[in-house]
């Protein structure tokens, strides 16, 4: 099946205001974004489409924002953070504000985490307030005592 | 002059005790006999609300005390060393160790008789050690 990022995006929320002039639309309360197996749940979504069709930037904030997706159809990836920016063009998620991301037995916590959906490349930094990056690898269950 | 009969064992507020030791330990048998004579019930296993005594080791060693002019050993000192734990309910195990001494003359001309004397002294040392353990228990609050 073709990858999630090429799927259509569906957004639902309790209410929505769109200002065509500034190309900004805002959704609030129980916002849900779906794209194939990717789902993001947040309190507020602001879509900035100024860069034109296909280059929109989805900025979601929440307490926290929750993200989940199935990689290659079966490997679950979940994450949450105070703010998640989804840049359609570079197919990259940027999580900031005690961000946390878990994927097949490894878990990363940091101030800022960048996650490229296409290359599955994760990079984490400690950001300004020097919050350290913590990564925990749990071996496959065959060795668990 | 202020002497009064010894009251019963303070352990009397713990009517039962568990005595743990290596199999067939003679000292453990004597301590248990002494305890049951003082109407303390002997438990068969460690219990949370009752004290227990763990006899760790009892060893007998011999040290030379004096020599004959020929250099032969005239007198030996028998050193009987006992170490044990007293575990009061809800408290850390308290380690105790003491040594008892007896001197004893060896005589190569009567080796078997002297070996019998050694067995007798060992059983007397064990009686003394059992009494001492009971005395130390008696002073535990």
């Amino acid at each position, binding site marked *: 099946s073709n990858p999630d990022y090429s799927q259509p995006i569906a957004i639902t929320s309790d209410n929505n205001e769109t200002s065509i002039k500034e190309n900004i639309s805002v959704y609030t309360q129980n916002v849900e974004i779906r794209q194939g197996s990717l789902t993001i749940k947040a309190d507020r979504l602001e879509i900035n489409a100024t860069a034109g069709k296909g280059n929109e930037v989805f900025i979601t904030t929440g307490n926290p924002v929750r993200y989940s997706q199935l990689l290659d159809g079966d490997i679950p990836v979940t994450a949450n953070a105070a703010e998640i920016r989804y840049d359609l063009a570079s197919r990259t998620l940027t999580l900031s504000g005690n961000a946390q991301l878990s994927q097949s037995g*490894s878990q990363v916590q940091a101030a800022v985490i960048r996650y490229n959906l296409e290359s599955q*490349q*994760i*990079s984490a*930094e*400690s950001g300004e307030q020097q919050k*350290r*990056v*913590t*990564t*925990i*690898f*749990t*071996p496959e269950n065959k060795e*668990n*005592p | 002059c*202020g*002497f*009064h*009969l*010894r*009251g*019963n*064992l303070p352990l009397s507020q713990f009517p039962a005790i568990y005595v743990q030791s290596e*199999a*067939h*330990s*003679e000292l453990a048998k004597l301590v248990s006999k002494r305890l049951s*004579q*003082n109407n303390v019930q002997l438990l068969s296993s460690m219990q949370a609300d009752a004290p227990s005594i763990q006899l760790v080791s*009892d060893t*007998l*060693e*011999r*040290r*030379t005390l*004096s*020599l*004959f*002019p*020929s250099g*032969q*050993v*005239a*007198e030996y000192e028998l050193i009987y060393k006992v170490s044990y734990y007293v575990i009061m309910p809800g408290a850390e195990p308290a380690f105790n160790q003491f040594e008892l001494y*007896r*001197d*004893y*003359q*060896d*005589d*190569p*001309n009567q*080796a*078997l*008789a002297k*070996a*019998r*004397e050694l067995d007798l002294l060992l059983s007397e040392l064990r009686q003394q050690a059992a009494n001492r353990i009971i005395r*130390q228990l008696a002073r535990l609050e």
Partner: protein
Amino acid sequence: SEPVIQMCYQPLTQPAVLKSLDPANNTVQISSDSADLSGNQTALFNGNVEIIHRDTLLTAPSARFSRNEQRIFADGGIEYFDSSLKVSAREFSADTLNSQAQIGGAHYQFIAQAGRGYADTLLASPQRINLNQALFTTCPLDDNSWALHASDININAGEGWGSARHAVFKIRDIPVLYLPYLTFPVNEQRKTGLLLPKVASSQLSGLEFELPYYINLAENYDLTLTPRYMSKRGTQLKSEFRYLTPAHQGILQLEYLNSDNDKPADLGSRYLGHLSHRSDFTANWRGYIDFTDVSDDAYLTELGSDYTNQSDTQLYREATLAHYGERVNSQIRLQGFEILGNFTDAYKALPEVRLSSARPMPIISAVELDWQASYAHFSNDSALISSANRLHLEPTLRLPFVTPALEFSAEASMLYTYYQQDSNLDAADITANVQRALPKIRLYSRLNLEREYDWFGEPALQTFEPQIQYLYIPYRQQNQIGLYDTTRLQDDYYGLFRQNRFSGIDRINEANQLTVGWTTRFYDNVDNELFRFSLGQIFFLEDPTTTADNLTDNLTATDSMLASELIWHWYRRWYFSAASQYDIEGKQLIKSNASLDYRGSENTLLQLNHRYSRAVSGLEIQQLGVLGAVPVAKNWQLIASYYRDVTNHRMIDANVGVQYESCCWAVRLVARRHIRVNLDTSIDNALQFGELDSSLSLQFVLKGFGDKAGFGVSDMLSNGIFGYRRPYLLTN
């Protein structure tokens, strides 16, 4: 008391997180300034990286972790900690699957004990550390007093031993000794036997060098082989095989010297064999063996051994099978002796069977029955009665009444003994069959009185324990019974209340006597026994029948004994103890000993001791001893001990030793002159003085391997005859 040089080792700085690590947690936790992960490929971490896996911690500027290979890589200035080790090195890699770390260019240091060094590569896994192209020393960081360089060092903390291959031992970087293979203790797990190389010299053996090799054969078997070179005698091989399984445990020791150059050639090889073994076949069947044999009588005095005292005069041999039943304890025992020197041969008990009641059997109300029965076959070719069978039965009825305050017991027993005696001399005038039956009545009572007294303002306890015993045993004529395991017992305070004055039942002394005695004890506020005084006396209600029995001739007709004992712990540092035994009838002192001890601060002690015995095997013994240890300067310690035979006005054992102890090594020089046992004399002409033997021993020891390797003050003082402790095999 901590030795003065304890400040050798600065406390090791350890990250606090180490204490909270859980060895069972097999996750890999990495904290860093930044992290880059891509799916299953290698993850990169940068910025003072800290990696925790089980109970190990790694810090590095950067690190890589490959998930599918489960391997960590790090380089630059890394530091690695596990439960026993701290390592700083250039590069590091670890396989987290089977928790093994490989470190290059490693400077390592033990956490719990002295020991540090360097290794080109260090492999660390739980319980085992392997270093190659390595250096090991226990000296502090900037001290190169000694170091062990080896192509390969293995340390197994679990076993308590380490081994090194192609080891070069250097003192201040000067190579001193090359050994293809060397073993050494790493912690205090091994307690017995020689642990470290020893250099000594003595008149007996000349220059001596011993080096132990530890071989761990299996999980519960180990073997220590110790070649011992003696310039005057040759090279002896000592071996000690130890085994400990749930059912069987024991030690087998074999020592072998092919030919002794200091002895006539026809003496042949000299050996010692010692076995002490115990088996618990089932919950109530137990067997044990204690056996020692030497090639010649002078072996022990000339070559010595870890298992017997140089002045032992006989080798004890026993094999026993015991059954501990619900109601009956039974035991079959074979007992014999190898006598060293020309003393009369001893009777052997081959076998002796003993049955006794395991628990008193209640009869009616509070009366209980105890019984014991024994059969023994004694043999002794050089005795008049060369073999004898003895059957003994002794039932006892007892009425015990015990409370903490008052103890009372009334006993009545019947003693029946039957002897069959014969001699290999046909004209021997001995009685073939003898029977002896006699009753015994004993009444015993003891009172426990206490009172509080004030010990420097603190409540403390004084006890007063009077005891009284009445004993009745009728007279029986017994001198036609041989003496197999019977000799006169020594009457000290404890003996006053015995029911038989002899060690065995071949003689049962007549008695119609009252024994009165009392003990008073003072305890301090923390229940240490400060002072104990006991006094006791036997009163004969009627004079014992005079007997012409060879054994009892030295028992005077109205021999009533007064014995007293005094133990007094005088002040915090001074200890005084004395015991004496006085015979009122004969108005003479039978035996006394006294010792005055001063224990100062660390490593300072002084003792003055005196012993007197009126007759030990007919000889008067009076002995004076002075011993002391005092630190003379930083790291220097002086020890001295001197024992004098006052009766014969001569010195019997004198040691003077000086010891220099630095952080990681110690050297001790001890000059010793002591009397050497002269086995050619029998005890009756013991007056023939043994010769004095002098020796000078230089003991050089590497410290920090487990305990102080025998360098504590008390170990030093136990150099002489009187310090040695011989352990007994206690089996129940």
